[in-house]
Protein backbone atom coordinates (compact mmCIF):
# COMPACT_ATOMS: atom_id res chain seq x y z
CA UNK A 1 0.00 0.00 0.00
CA UNK A 2 2.87 2.35 0.78
CA UNK A 3 5.33 3.33 -1.93
CA UNK A 4 9.03 2.99 -1.17
CA UNK A 5 10.85 6.05 0.05
CA UNK A 6 13.72 7.59 -1.88
CA UNK A 7 17.00 7.30 -0.05
CA UNK A 8 20.66 8.16 -0.35
CA UNK A 9 22.85 5.18 0.51
CA UNK A 10 25.85 5.85 2.76
CA UNK A 11 29.02 3.75 2.89
CA UNK A 12 28.09 2.62 6.42
CA UNK A 13 24.90 0.97 5.12
CA UNK A 14 22.44 3.57 6.39
CA UNK A 15 20.12 5.58 4.17
CA UNK A 16 19.02 9.20 4.36
CA UNK A 17 16.01 10.99 2.90
CA UNK A 18 18.09 14.11 2.29
CA UNK A 19 21.58 14.49 0.84
CA UNK A 20 23.32 17.23 2.81
CA UNK A 21 26.75 18.56 3.44
CA UNK A 22 27.45 20.03 6.87
CA UNK A 23 29.69 22.94 7.76
CA UNK A 24 30.46 22.46 11.45
CA UNK A 25 31.90 25.07 13.81
CA UNK A 26 33.71 23.54 16.78
CA UNK A 27 33.54 26.66 18.97
CA UNK A 28 31.56 29.92 18.75
CA UNK A 29 34.75 31.68 17.60
CA UNK A 30 34.51 29.71 14.32
CA UNK A 31 30.75 30.21 13.91
CA UNK A 32 30.89 33.25 11.66
CA UNK A 33 33.35 31.65 9.26
CA UNK A 34 31.29 28.43 9.12
CA UNK A 35 28.07 30.38 8.55
CA UNK A 36 29.65 32.49 5.79
CA UNK A 37 30.92 29.39 3.97
CA UNK A 38 27.37 27.94 4.20
CA UNK A 39 25.81 31.20 2.96
CA UNK A 40 27.95 31.30 -0.15
CA UNK A 41 26.10 28.23 -1.47
CA UNK A 42 22.57 29.52 -0.88
CA UNK A 43 21.43 25.90 -0.96
CA UNK A 44 19.45 23.79 1.47
CA UNK A 45 21.95 21.03 0.66
CA UNK A 46 24.59 22.88 2.69
CA UNK A 47 23.77 23.48 6.34
CA UNK A 48 25.62 24.90 9.31
CA UNK A 49 25.65 23.26 12.76
CA UNK A 50 28.12 23.35 15.63
CA UNK A 51 28.96 23.63 19.29
CA UNK A 52 29.55 27.01 20.87
CA UNK A 53 31.47 25.99 24.01
CA UNK A 54 35.25 26.17 24.33
CA UNK A 55 35.46 23.63 27.16
CA UNK A 56 35.31 19.95 26.20
CA UNK A 57 32.13 17.96 26.93
CA UNK A 58 31.67 14.25 26.17
CA UNK A 59 27.99 14.70 25.35
CA UNK A 60 28.68 17.46 22.80
CA UNK A 61 31.45 15.37 21.26
CA UNK A 62 29.11 12.35 20.92
CA UNK A 63 26.31 14.52 19.59
CA UNK A 64 28.39 16.13 16.83
CA UNK A 65 29.79 12.73 15.90
CA UNK A 66 26.27 11.26 15.62
CA UNK A 67 25.09 14.27 13.62
CA UNK A 68 28.05 14.37 11.22
CA UNK A 69 27.44 10.67 10.50
CA UNK A 70 23.63 11.08 10.33
CA UNK A 71 22.02 9.23 7.41
CA UNK A 72 20.81 12.51 5.83
CA UNK A 73 24.42 13.77 5.83
CA UNK A 74 26.90 12.90 3.08
CA UNK A 75 29.98 14.75 4.29
CA UNK A 76 31.28 17.41 6.66
CA UNK A 77 33.63 20.36 6.74
CA UNK A 78 34.88 20.98 10.28
CA UNK A 79 35.79 24.57 11.09
CA UNK A 80 38.02 25.01 14.11
CA UNK A 81 39.50 28.20 15.49
CA UNK A 82 42.54 26.17 16.47
CA UNK A 83 42.78 26.46 20.24
CA UNK A 84 39.34 25.29 21.48
CA UNK A 85 38.85 22.26 23.72
CA UNK A 86 36.80 20.25 21.23
CA UNK A 87 38.53 17.08 20.01
CA UNK A 88 38.45 17.79 16.27
CA UNK A 89 40.77 14.89 15.41
CA UNK A 90 38.46 12.33 17.03
CA UNK A 91 35.46 13.82 15.24
CA UNK A 92 37.21 13.84 11.86
CA UNK A 93 38.34 10.20 12.34
CA UNK A 94 34.80 9.09 13.21
CA UNK A 95 33.31 10.82 10.16
CA UNK A 96 36.02 9.39 7.94
CA UNK A 97 35.51 5.87 9.39
CA UNK A 98 31.84 6.12 8.39
CA UNK A 99 32.95 6.48 4.76
CA UNK A 100 31.92 10.12 4.47
CA UNK A 101 34.25 12.79 3.07
CA UNK A 102 35.52 15.08 5.83
CA UNK A 103 37.94 17.97 5.93
CA UNK A 104 39.15 20.08 8.86
CA UNK A 105 40.17 23.73 8.61
CA UNK A 106 41.81 25.61 11.45
CA UNK A 107 41.32 29.34 11.12
CA UNK A 108 44.59 30.05 12.94
CA UNK A 109 46.55 27.76 10.59
CA UNK A 110 44.75 28.92 7.42
CA UNK A 111 45.71 32.51 8.17
CA UNK A 112 42.44 34.09 9.27
CA UNK A 113 38.85 34.64 8.21
CA UNK A 114 39.22 35.29 4.49
CA UNK A 115 41.71 32.50 3.81
CA UNK A 116 39.53 29.98 5.69
CA UNK A 117 36.42 31.14 3.86
CA UNK A 118 38.10 30.57 0.52
CA UNK A 119 39.56 27.18 1.45
CA UNK A 120 36.21 26.13 2.92
CA UNK A 121 34.24 27.25 -0.08
CA UNK A 122 36.57 25.34 -2.42
CA UNK A 123 36.26 22.11 -0.42
CA UNK A 124 32.47 22.35 -0.10
CA UNK A 125 32.10 23.07 -3.84
CA UNK A 126 33.91 19.90 -4.86
CA UNK A 127 32.32 17.76 -2.11
CA UNK A 128 28.89 18.99 -3.12
CA UNK A 129 29.56 18.10 -6.73
CA UNK A 130 30.36 14.46 -5.88
CA UNK A 131 27.40 14.32 -3.48
CA UNK A 132 24.99 15.50 -6.17
CA UNK A 133 26.33 12.91 -8.60
CA UNK A 134 25.10 10.11 -6.32
CA UNK A 135 21.97 8.32 -7.52
CA UNK A 136 19.07 7.94 -5.10
CA UNK A 137 18.00 4.40 -4.25
CA UNK A 138 14.69 2.87 -3.07
CA UNK A 139 14.41 2.92 0.70
CA UNK A 140 12.16 0.75 2.86
CA UNK A 141 10.00 2.09 5.68
CA UNK A 142 11.97 -0.16 8.06
CA UNK A 143 14.97 2.10 7.32
CA UNK A 144 13.10 5.20 8.48
CA UNK A 145 13.32 6.66 11.99
CA UNK A 146 10.92 9.42 12.97
CA UNK A 147 11.07 11.55 16.09
CA UNK A 148 8.19 13.43 17.64
CA UNK A 149 8.16 16.60 19.65
CA UNK A 150 5.62 19.21 20.71
CA UNK A 151 6.40 22.89 21.06
CA UNK A 152 4.27 25.90 21.82
CA UNK A 153 1.63 23.54 23.23
CA UNK A 154 -1.83 24.62 24.27
CA UNK A 155 -4.85 22.64 25.41
CA UNK A 156 -5.76 21.74 21.82
CA UNK A 157 -2.39 19.96 21.31
CA UNK A 158 -3.47 17.01 23.42
CA UNK A 159 -6.88 16.81 21.76
CA UNK A 160 -5.94 16.89 18.09
CA UNK A 161 -2.33 17.03 16.83
CA UNK A 162 -0.70 14.84 19.48
CA UNK A 163 -3.12 11.89 19.34
CA UNK A 164 -3.18 12.19 15.51
CA UNK A 165 0.62 11.94 15.47
CA UNK A 166 0.19 8.91 17.77
CA UNK A 167 -2.01 7.32 15.08
CA UNK A 168 0.70 8.08 12.47
CA UNK A 169 3.33 6.56 14.80
CA UNK A 170 1.28 3.35 15.09
CA UNK A 171 1.09 3.17 11.27
CA UNK A 172 4.85 3.78 10.98
CA UNK A 173 5.63 1.03 13.50
CA UNK A 174 3.24 -1.37 11.71
CA UNK A 175 5.26 -0.65 8.53
CA UNK A 176 8.49 -1.69 10.27
CA UNK A 177 9.73 1.83 11.02
CA UNK A 178 11.22 3.30 14.18
CA UNK A 179 9.37 5.90 16.25
CA UNK A 180 10.97 7.93 19.05
CA UNK A 181 9.10 10.14 21.51
CA UNK A 182 10.83 12.22 24.15
CA UNK A 183 10.99 14.69 27.01
CA UNK A 184 10.59 12.71 30.21
CA UNK A 185 10.02 16.03 32.01
CA UNK A 186 6.78 16.32 30.02
CA UNK A 187 5.71 12.80 30.94
CA UNK A 188 5.49 13.52 34.68
CA UNK A 189 2.28 11.84 35.82
CA UNK A 190 2.27 9.32 32.94
CA UNK A 191 4.85 6.94 34.44
CA UNK A 192 2.42 4.15 35.38
CA UNK A 193 0.62 4.23 32.03
CA UNK A 194 3.97 4.01 30.22
CA UNK A 195 5.27 1.22 32.44
CA UNK A 196 2.20 -0.87 31.56
CA UNK A 197 3.12 -0.60 27.86
CA UNK A 198 6.76 -1.70 28.33
CA UNK A 199 7.91 -4.94 26.65
CA UNK A 200 9.35 -6.21 29.95
CA UNK A 201 8.75 -5.39 33.65
CA UNK A 202 12.41 -4.29 33.94
CA UNK A 203 11.94 -1.79 31.11
CA UNK A 204 8.74 -0.65 32.82
CA UNK A 205 10.73 0.13 35.97
CA UNK A 206 13.39 1.94 33.91
CA UNK A 207 10.64 4.09 32.37
CA UNK A 208 9.27 4.93 35.85
CA UNK A 209 12.80 5.75 37.05
CA UNK A 210 13.46 8.05 34.09
CA UNK A 211 10.34 10.11 34.89
CA UNK A 212 11.26 10.20 38.60
CA UNK A 213 14.71 11.50 37.61
CA UNK A 214 13.08 14.20 35.49
CA UNK A 215 10.77 15.21 38.36
CA UNK A 216 13.79 15.48 40.72
CA UNK A 217 15.77 17.47 38.18
CA UNK A 218 12.96 19.95 37.58
CA UNK A 219 12.23 20.16 41.32
CA UNK A 220 15.87 21.20 41.88
CA UNK A 221 15.53 23.83 39.19
CA UNK A 222 12.39 25.01 40.98
CA UNK A 223 9.81 24.68 38.21
CA UNK A 224 8.60 22.18 35.64
CA UNK A 225 8.76 22.33 31.83
CA UNK A 226 5.76 24.63 31.74
CA UNK A 227 5.80 27.98 29.95
CA UNK A 228 3.40 30.85 30.71
CA UNK A 229 1.92 30.30 27.22
CA UNK A 230 0.90 26.79 28.21
CA UNK A 231 -1.34 28.15 31.00
CA UNK A 232 -2.68 30.88 28.73
CA UNK A 233 -3.56 28.13 26.26
CA UNK A 234 -5.63 26.30 28.87
CA UNK A 235 -3.15 23.83 30.37
CA UNK A 236 -3.41 23.96 34.15
CA UNK A 237 -0.62 21.72 35.47
CA UNK A 238 2.47 19.86 34.28
CA UNK A 239 0.55 16.57 34.49
CA UNK A 240 -2.15 17.94 32.17
CA UNK A 241 0.56 19.06 29.74
CA UNK A 242 2.11 15.59 30.09
CA UNK A 243 -1.20 13.94 29.27
CA UNK A 244 -1.25 15.78 25.94
CA UNK A 245 2.43 15.14 25.23
CA UNK A 246 2.03 11.46 26.05
CA UNK A 247 -0.67 11.08 23.37
CA UNK A 248 2.09 11.48 20.74
CA UNK A 249 3.34 7.99 21.58
CA UNK A 250 0.27 6.24 20.13
CA UNK A 251 -0.87 2.83 21.33
CA UNK A 252 2.06 0.56 20.45
CA UNK A 253 4.13 -1.29 23.03
CA UNK A 254 7.29 0.48 24.22
CA UNK A 255 10.42 -1.33 23.02
CA UNK A 256 13.13 0.62 24.77
CA UNK A 257 14.46 3.63 26.63
CA UNK A 258 17.39 5.42 24.98
CA UNK A 259 19.70 8.36 25.70
CA UNK A 260 20.74 11.08 23.20
CA UNK A 261 23.02 9.58 20.54
CA UNK A 262 21.78 5.97 20.98
CA UNK A 263 20.41 4.41 17.82
CA UNK A 264 17.50 2.00 18.41
CA UNK A 265 18.61 -1.53 17.44
CA UNK A 266 15.44 -2.31 15.45
CA UNK A 267 12.05 -0.89 14.47
CA UNK A 268 9.49 -0.10 17.17
CA UNK A 269 8.67 2.56 19.73
CA UNK A 270 11.33 4.13 21.95
CA UNK A 271 11.35 6.79 24.65
CA UNK A 272 14.29 9.20 24.52
CA UNK A 273 15.42 10.26 28.00
CA UNK A 274 16.59 13.86 27.50
CA UNK A 275 17.10 14.77 31.17
CA UNK A 276 20.81 14.73 32.20
CA UNK A 277 22.14 12.21 34.71
CA UNK A 278 23.80 13.10 38.00
CA UNK A 279 23.68 16.41 39.82
CA UNK A 280 22.02 19.40 38.18
CA UNK A 281 25.02 20.99 36.51
CA UNK A 282 24.44 22.84 33.25
CA UNK A 283 20.98 24.29 33.84
CA UNK A 284 17.82 23.43 31.95
CA UNK A 285 17.58 19.92 30.50
CA UNK A 286 16.70 21.46 27.14
CA UNK A 287 16.86 25.18 26.54
CA UNK A 288 14.36 25.04 23.66
CA UNK A 289 12.62 22.73 21.16
CA UNK A 290 15.57 22.62 18.76
CA UNK A 291 17.83 21.22 21.49
CA UNK A 292 15.46 18.24 21.64
CA UNK A 293 15.28 17.96 17.86
CA UNK A 294 19.11 17.78 17.79
CA UNK A 295 18.95 14.86 20.24
CA UNK A 296 16.28 13.04 18.22
CA UNK A 297 18.45 13.46 15.12
CA UNK A 298 21.48 12.15 17.01
CA UNK A 299 19.42 8.99 17.64
CA UNK A 300 19.12 8.62 13.87
CA UNK A 301 15.78 10.31 13.15
CA UNK A 302 15.70 11.33 9.48
CA UNK A 303 12.34 13.07 9.92
CA UNK A 304 10.65 14.99 12.76
CA UNK A 305 6.93 15.36 13.52
CA UNK A 306 6.34 18.59 15.41
CA UNK A 307 2.99 19.38 17.01
CA UNK A 308 2.11 22.93 17.94
CA UNK A 309 -0.97 24.67 19.31
CA UNK A 310 0.25 28.22 19.91
CA UNK A 311 2.18 28.19 16.63
CA UNK A 312 5.88 27.33 16.38
CA UNK A 313 7.64 28.08 13.09
CA UNK A 314 10.95 26.23 13.57
CA UNK A 315 12.46 23.65 11.28
CA UNK A 316 15.89 22.13 11.69
CA UNK A 317 19.23 21.56 10.09
CA UNK A 318 19.63 17.93 8.93
CA UNK A 319 16.12 16.44 9.36
CA UNK A 320 12.98 17.89 7.74
CA UNK A 321 10.27 18.92 10.22
CA UNK A 322 6.57 18.27 9.54
CA UNK A 323 4.50 20.79 11.47
CA UNK A 324 1.12 19.53 12.71
CA UNK A 325 -1.05 22.39 13.90
CA UNK A 326 -3.42 21.49 16.74
CA UNK A 327 -5.40 24.71 17.03
CA UNK A 328 -7.74 25.71 14.18
CA UNK A 329 -7.40 29.45 14.96
CA UNK A 330 -3.59 29.21 14.90
CA UNK A 331 -3.79 27.35 11.59
CA UNK A 332 -5.85 30.12 10.01
CA UNK A 333 -3.30 32.71 11.22
CA UNK A 334 -0.12 30.80 10.33
CA UNK A 335 -1.15 28.50 7.48
CA UNK A 336 2.05 29.01 5.48
CA UNK A 337 4.11 27.47 8.29
CA UNK A 338 1.86 24.46 8.91
CA UNK A 339 1.95 21.17 7.01
CA UNK A 340 -1.13 19.60 8.59
CA UNK A 341 -4.35 21.18 9.92
CA UNK A 342 -5.25 18.87 12.83
CA UNK A 343 -7.60 21.51 14.29
CA UNK A 344 -10.21 20.17 11.86
CA UNK A 345 -10.77 17.42 14.44
CA UNK A 346 -11.91 20.02 16.98
CA UNK A 347 -14.33 21.53 14.47
CA UNK A 348 -15.76 18.14 13.50
CA UNK A 349 -14.38 18.39 9.95
CA UNK A 350 -12.10 15.34 10.20
CA UNK A 351 -11.57 12.37 12.49
CA UNK A 352 -8.45 11.52 14.46
CA UNK A 353 -7.93 8.45 12.25
CA UNK A 354 -8.19 10.56 9.06
CA UNK A 355 -5.63 13.13 10.23
CA UNK A 356 -3.34 10.34 11.49
CA UNK A 357 -3.47 8.69 8.07
CA UNK A 358 -2.83 12.07 6.42
CA UNK A 359 0.30 12.59 8.56
CA UNK A 360 1.52 9.08 7.72
CA UNK A 361 1.04 9.69 3.98
CA UNK A 362 2.80 13.05 4.22
CA UNK A 363 5.74 11.32 5.96
CA UNK A 364 5.93 9.14 2.85
CA UNK A 365 5.93 12.09 0.46
CA UNK A 366 8.56 13.97 2.50
CA UNK A 367 10.54 10.72 2.49
CA UNK A 368 10.31 10.84 -1.30
CA UNK A 369 11.74 14.35 -1.41
CA UNK A 370 8.78 16.72 -0.98
CA UNK A 371 9.82 19.81 0.97
CA UNK A 372 8.03 20.56 4.25
CA UNK A 373 6.77 24.09 4.94
CA UNK A 374 9.73 24.89 7.20
CA UNK A 375 12.18 23.56 4.58
CA UNK A 376 10.54 25.66 1.87
CA UNK A 377 10.79 28.73 4.13
CA UNK A 378 14.49 28.05 4.70
CA UNK A 379 14.36 27.16 8.40
CA UNK A 380 17.59 25.47 9.56
CA UNK A 381 17.57 26.04 13.34
CA UNK A 382 20.17 24.20 15.37
CA UNK A 383 21.39 24.35 18.95
CA UNK A 384 23.67 22.18 21.07
CA UNK A 385 24.45 22.81 24.74
CA UNK A 386 26.46 21.27 27.58
CA UNK A 387 24.99 18.13 29.19
CA UNK A 388 26.05 14.93 30.89
CA UNK A 389 24.71 11.40 30.61
CA UNK A 390 25.69 7.94 31.78
CA UNK A 391 24.98 4.93 29.58
CA UNK A 392 21.57 3.29 29.94
CA UNK A 393 21.42 -0.08 31.73
CA UNK A 394 20.69 -3.40 29.95
CA UNK A 395 17.02 -3.31 31.06
CA UNK A 396 16.47 -0.29 28.80
CA UNK A 397 16.86 -2.22 25.54
CA UNK A 398 15.41 -5.72 26.08
CA UNK A 399 16.54 -8.21 23.42
Amino acid sequence: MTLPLIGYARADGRKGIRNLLLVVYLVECAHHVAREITRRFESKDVQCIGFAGCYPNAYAQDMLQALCTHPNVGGALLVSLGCEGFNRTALASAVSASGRPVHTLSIQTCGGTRATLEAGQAWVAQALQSLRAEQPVPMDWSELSVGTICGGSDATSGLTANPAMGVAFDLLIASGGTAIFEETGELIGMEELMAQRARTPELGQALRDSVAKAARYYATLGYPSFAPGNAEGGLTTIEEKSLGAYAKSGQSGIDGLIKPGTRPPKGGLYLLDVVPDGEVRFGFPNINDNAEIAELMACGCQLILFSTGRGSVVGSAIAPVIKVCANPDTYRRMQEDMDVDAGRILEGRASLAQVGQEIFELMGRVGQGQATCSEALGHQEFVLTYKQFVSAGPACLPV
Partner: protein
Amino acid sequence: MASSELSRALQLAPTDNVVVALADLSRGATIDVAGVSLSLRDPIKIGHKFALREIAAGERILKYNCPIGSATRRIEAGESVHTHNVRSDYLANTTPTMAVPP
Protein backbone atom coordinates in the same frame (compact mmCIF):
# COMPACT_ATOMS: atom_id res chain seq x y z
CA MET B 1 -30.12 23.38 17.90
CA ALA B 2 -29.44 20.65 20.44
CA SER B 3 -26.77 19.00 18.26
CA SER B 4 -24.78 22.22 17.82
CA GLU B 5 -24.96 22.85 21.58
CA LEU B 6 -23.64 19.34 22.15
CA SER B 7 -20.62 19.94 19.96
CA ARG B 8 -19.43 22.96 21.96
CA ALA B 9 -17.88 20.97 24.81
CA LEU B 10 -16.49 17.48 25.19
CA GLN B 11 -16.16 15.04 28.05
CA LEU B 12 -13.05 13.01 27.21
CA ALA B 13 -13.77 10.06 29.54
CA PRO B 14 -16.99 9.11 31.36
CA THR B 15 -15.36 9.47 34.79
CA ASP B 16 -14.07 13.02 34.12
CA ASN B 17 -15.31 15.83 36.38
CA VAL B 18 -14.22 18.49 33.87
CA VAL B 19 -15.13 19.02 30.21
CA VAL B 20 -13.24 20.82 27.45
CA ALA B 21 -14.58 23.76 25.41
CA LEU B 22 -14.49 23.12 21.66
CA ALA B 23 -15.00 26.81 20.86
CA ASP B 24 -14.78 30.11 22.76
CA LEU B 25 -17.84 30.08 25.06
CA SER B 26 -19.47 33.05 26.81
CA ARG B 27 -20.39 33.40 30.46
CA GLY B 28 -24.07 32.49 30.94
CA ALA B 29 -24.19 30.22 27.88
CA THR B 30 -26.17 27.01 28.35
CA ILE B 31 -24.13 23.96 27.46
CA ASP B 32 -25.50 20.43 27.12
CA VAL B 33 -22.71 17.96 27.67
CA ALA B 34 -22.44 14.41 29.07
CA GLY B 35 -26.16 14.32 29.82
CA VAL B 36 -26.06 17.51 31.89
CA SER B 37 -27.27 21.00 31.07
CA LEU B 38 -24.97 23.65 32.55
CA SER B 39 -24.96 27.41 32.70
CA LEU B 40 -21.39 28.74 32.40
CA ARG B 41 -20.23 30.85 35.35
CA ASP B 42 -17.15 32.11 33.46
CA PRO B 43 -16.19 32.71 29.83
CA ILE B 44 -14.28 29.61 28.63
CA LYS B 45 -11.75 29.81 25.81
CA ILE B 46 -11.26 27.02 23.26
CA GLY B 47 -9.43 24.07 24.81
CA HIS B 48 -9.94 25.35 28.37
CA LYS B 49 -11.87 23.37 30.99
CA PHE B 50 -14.94 23.85 33.15
CA ALA B 51 -16.49 21.76 35.91
CA LEU B 52 -19.15 19.27 34.89
CA ARG B 53 -20.37 19.03 38.48
CA GLU B 54 -19.47 20.49 41.85
CA ILE B 55 -15.88 19.60 42.81
CA ALA B 56 -14.86 19.62 46.50
CA ALA B 57 -11.67 21.25 47.77
CA GLY B 58 -8.83 18.72 47.56
CA GLU B 59 -10.66 16.53 45.03
CA ARG B 60 -8.64 15.20 42.09
CA ILE B 61 -9.37 16.75 38.70
CA LEU B 62 -9.87 13.99 36.12
CA LYS B 63 -9.33 14.51 32.36
CA TYR B 64 -9.16 11.47 30.07
CA ASN B 65 -9.64 9.61 33.39
CA CYS B 66 -6.14 10.81 34.40
CA PRO B 67 -5.55 12.95 37.50
CA ILE B 68 -4.18 16.32 36.34
CA GLY B 69 -4.05 18.02 39.77
CA SER B 70 -6.20 18.78 42.81
CA ALA B 71 -8.80 21.47 43.48
CA THR B 72 -7.51 24.16 45.87
CA ARG B 73 -11.08 25.17 46.77
CA ARG B 74 -14.66 24.18 46.05
CA ILE B 75 -15.50 24.57 42.35
CA GLU B 76 -19.11 24.98 41.18
CA ALA B 77 -20.55 23.20 38.14
CA GLY B 78 -20.03 25.42 35.08
CA GLU B 79 -17.09 27.25 36.67
CA SER B 80 -13.73 27.60 34.92
CA VAL B 81 -11.19 25.00 36.13
CA HIS B 82 -7.66 26.34 35.73
CA THR B 83 -4.56 27.58 37.57
CA HIS B 84 -6.64 29.77 39.93
CA ASN B 85 -8.40 26.79 41.53
CA VAL B 86 -6.18 23.77 40.75
CA ARG B 87 -2.64 22.88 41.79
CA SER B 88 -0.26 20.21 40.47
CA ASP B 89 0.26 17.09 42.56
CA TYR B 90 3.88 17.04 41.31
CA LEU B 91 5.47 20.46 40.67
CA ALA B 92 3.95 23.93 40.85
CA ASN B 93 4.28 25.77 37.54
CA THR B 94 6.14 28.84 38.68
CA THR B 95 8.48 29.67 35.83
CA PRO B 96 10.86 32.60 36.38
CA THR B 97 8.66 35.03 34.45
CA MET B 98 5.63 33.99 36.51
CA ALA B 99 7.35 34.24 39.91
CA VAL B 100 5.93 36.87 42.25
CA PRO B 101 8.62 39.16 43.69
CA PRO B 102 9.02 38.85 47.50
